[in-house]
């Protein structure tokens, strides 16, 4: 039993990271109908920022600095992507465009950092392990869970309780209507795109001590984030949270319970959810055209 509880804990850590990464993807899709396939590349930029700044186990201050640097880099990339995707209205073209950016960014990272696998050490004070339920558990992962909770609460208040949030939600529901009301949606859209990308890049730093950094990681992370977004419901903040927690658990607890089917679990869970609820578990509210 204790073994499975540790897996649950681990699933929460993974879920926290997935939430940070998937949130931007979901909002950008919900608000702009843009499937941002460069989201994984933005994540990887964050991971490599960590490689550059704190690879060999720096102190807490340096780690925080890396987080901030990644956020800035992510926001810049996000703003750039927002500007690029506005150049075309066709959805497949936008997807193609972001994929092109993803490939270029990935390749540039490879040129700069080489093809080798890089690992990133957790900041010194939290690099060790504690005993949880009789098993050693890395302290850093506990902190990641804490970060996930803080992020979820902060995002909840920002999106569900603030004026800016209601604007975001209204834009997800009916962009044309918000624009008709005279709101400059362009700025909101670029802002959300940049913020979402910044969050993904921060996710890259925070996941660094767990997943490291290497070429190709962007694709894996993007795929998982897509699954999270689709399961949760496109454009829905609560959906992204639920999806992230669920996929975290499927990967951790699911693997612990059914190791022989490990490679099918994530996709099976997604197919099951989509067959039962094609719009995801907690779809965003859309405008009602009565």
């Amino acid at each position, binding site marked *: 039993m204790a073994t499975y509880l540790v897996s649950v804990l681990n699933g929460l850590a993974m879920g926290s990271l997935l939430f940070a990464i998937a949130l931007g993807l979901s909002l950008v899709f919900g608000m702009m109908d843009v499937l941002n396939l460069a989201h994984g590349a933005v994540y990887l930029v964050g991971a490599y920022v960590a490689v550059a700044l704190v690879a060999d186990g720096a102190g807490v201050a340096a780690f925080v600095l890396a987080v901030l640097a990644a956020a800035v880099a992510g926001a810049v990339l996000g703003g750039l992507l927002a500007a690029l995707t506005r150049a075309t209205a066709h959805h497949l073209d936008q997807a193609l465009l972001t994929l092109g950016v993803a490939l270029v960014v990935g390749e540039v990272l490879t040129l700069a950092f080489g093809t*080798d*696998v890089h690992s990133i050490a957790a900041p010194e004070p939290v690099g060790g392990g504690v005993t949880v339920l009789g*098993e050693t558990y890395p302290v850093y992962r506990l902190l990641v869970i804490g970060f996930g909770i803080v992020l979820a609460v902060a995002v909840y208040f920002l999106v569900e309780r603030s004026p800016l949030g209601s604007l975001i939600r209204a834009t997800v529901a009916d962009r044309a209507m918000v624009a008709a009301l005279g709101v400059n949606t362009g700025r909101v859209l670029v802002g959300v795109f940049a913020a979402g990308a910044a969050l993904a890049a921060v996710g890259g730093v925070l996941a660094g001590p*767990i997943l490291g950094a*290497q070429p190709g990681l962007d694709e894996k992370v993007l795929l998982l984030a897509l699954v999270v977004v689709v399961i949760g419901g496109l454009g829905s903040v609560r959906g992204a949270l639920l999806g992230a927690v669920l996929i975290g658990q499927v990967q951790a607890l699911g693997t*612990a319970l059914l*190791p022989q089917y490990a490679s099918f679990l994530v996709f099976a869970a997604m197919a099951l959810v989509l067959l039962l609820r094609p719009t995801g578990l907690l779809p965003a509210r859309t405008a009602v055209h009565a």
Partner: protein
Amino acid sequence: MGVVSVFSLSRTIAGLALGALVLSGCGSSLGESDTAEPGGGRSGGDVKIGLLVPLSGVYAPVGEDMKAGFELYLDQHDGKLGGHDVDLVTADEGEGPQTGVPAAQKLVTQDQVTAVAGVVNSATALGLRDFFHESKKPLLIANAGADAITGARKSDYVWRTSFSNGGVSGALGPAVAEEAKGSVYLMAADYAAGKEMVAGFRKSFEAAGGKVAGEKYTPFGKTQDFQPYLSAIRKSGADAVFAFYAGAEAVNFVKQYKQFGLADKTPLYGTGFLTEGGVLAAQGKAAAGVKTSLHYSTELKSARNKEFVDAYRQKSGKPPTAYAVQAYDAAAVLDKALAKASGDSGEDLVKALGGVGSIDSPRGAWKFDADHNPQQQFYLREVRADEGPAVNAVVRELD
């Protein structure tokens, strides 16, 4: 435009085009043997060699090492193999047969190379076997480890300067059976190489009286978090673990093995790929104490190896890996065979390959066995990370 004129025009164009093409006779792909271009490979004393290694994709680090190893040999021999100036054509193998097979076909049929060396991916190697066999061109596998390459699907034209999966892990079995106090848990990535590694280990391990506590395969290339498996190991009460991973999975596995506290209680064994090259650099101190089997280590004490390590460091700025040595040796084998070969054809070269005898390699002398696989010494290595960067110290020779 009138219908008739359009049609007659098109006929004319097609006719002209076809006629021109036939007359030009600049080549054709209708011959029975794809590569029967006389003298294409060696003109004016030069020899064209194809180097097929991954330059992109997940295996790119391995490819880079191999490229550096092969080039180092050429550098050390004035760019000559067997007395001929070498025109080296490098092609990108990519991640798998999708890219690797066309690239090899291009080397042989387009670039008309005399022989191809390289190939990391086993599926690519097996996919290329028939092509080289029928083209009668030698293929020197410098990494791909599938047992079948020099087993069930062996060919006169396919030679291997690296290892077979079962060979590397099989060498470790008796040593673990001897060292481990109780049962051993087996883990590997869920693909053909992982299965072969575990099978090879299990066979010699059980033959030496070892006991298996459990066996698990993790989704290949998709597993980032090993915690559920690590918990299962802990629960099984195993006294040691044998694992096969490479690349990013090796880094994550070894690091998490340490983070979740298993490294302190349950010794970790594996095939050398678990702690080789860039992987070991990324693992750092987390890998300390991991024991692996491989046919090479930078820490081998021989003078031949010391000289090689120094030269390699000077060339590429980092320590060599087994992958680099395998490609280096492929060049050495070609050097000897080209010097001995009586003619230009693949048959001549293959005949010469059979007679190259012992190769004086940084890993220690080795020679081809009857199946074209290296007959070589394996070493038990242990990661030491007390001071400076982590290294694979040589504990002893395995037999």
